[in-house]
């Protein structure tokens, strides 16, 4: 085997190993923590994020009781929450850190 062929073989083998490790890492990172190993197929926003949105609407609610009605995941870190305030509807966007991005009348 020539030196050139040996080098090419070594590089290919290294690339294969790196790719394998990367894939393994990817799989491992997607494994949820034990306390998160349950869900429903309906991917609603976590309850605390829904309530953070409800609290953001309170200032515009004129004293009405405010309740999140529905929610959905927009992307990996962002949720939309539909909030009712005494019959008035609001759309809220909140990220997974609890930061409200927007609140608008529906």
């Amino acid at each position, binding site marked *: 085997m020539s030196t050139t062929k040996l080098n090419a073989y070594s590089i290919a083998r290294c690339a294969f190993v790196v790719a394998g490790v990367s894939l393994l890492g990817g*799989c491992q990172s*997607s*494994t*949820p923590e*034990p*306390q*998160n*190993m*349950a*869900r*429903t*197929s*309906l991917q*609603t926003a*976590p*309850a*605390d*994020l*829904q*309530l*953070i949105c409800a*609290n953001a609407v309170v200032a515009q609610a004129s004293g009405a*009781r*405010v*309740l*999140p*009605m*529905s*929610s959905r995941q927009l992307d990996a870190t962002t949720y939309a929450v539909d909030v*009712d305030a*005494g019959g008035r509807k609001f759309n809220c966007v909140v990220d997974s850190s*609890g930061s409200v991005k927007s609140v608008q009348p529906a």
Partner: protein
Amino acid sequence: MTMIRDSLETEVKRGGTRKIGLIVLAAGLCLGPLAALAATQIYDARTKKWVDYDKRKARQYFARNKQVPEAFRRQVVTFRTAEPPGTIIIDGNQHFLYLVQPGGQAIRYGIGVGREGFGWAGIVRVGRTAEWPTWTPPAEMVARDPNAAKWAAGMPGGPDNPLGARALYLYEGENDTIYRIHGTVEPWTIGLDVSSGCIRMNNDDIVDLHSRVEIGAKVIVLMQGAALYKGV
């Protein structure tokens, strides 16, 4: 369903026709389907896949492990909210009940909620509580089920009682909503949409919650797709 039976016992004793009518209506609510909005799934660490978790699989899991999946066990979690400590927040879709604690935390419990149809959501409060509450089956159950018939006059509280070890009675203002948070004799149903509009918990968990909660505590029930709203 069970919450109605408990109320029925009290109402039958009072003999109030109007109240019986209310109970029958509420029985319809509880017996009726409550939001089969989404299937529960648990993560199988062996296959690294999410798998459906229905009543049959839940019973198998419980028989094998003598407890519910870890996600549904009592635990302290991070919970960012402006609600004061002592507030109960129920996420009916995800089958969790949170008791807000100081310092941005909550105690999270697994719960079972009602099966298919209409769910309820709203803002209510704990009106009263009971230890080892009495259960009385509704008349139609007495008529068709010999096992229930023997408890037509009321089943005393105890380890075989469907209401379990404790019950928290949920009120809207001064009115009993006829919904309860209570224990269960079917611990494997935690994490599932099961029978009624009541919120069921493992007996150990309802005893723990009961020991921590104050009469008058605010209860916020979140349920996407709910057909009934209380207190809002």
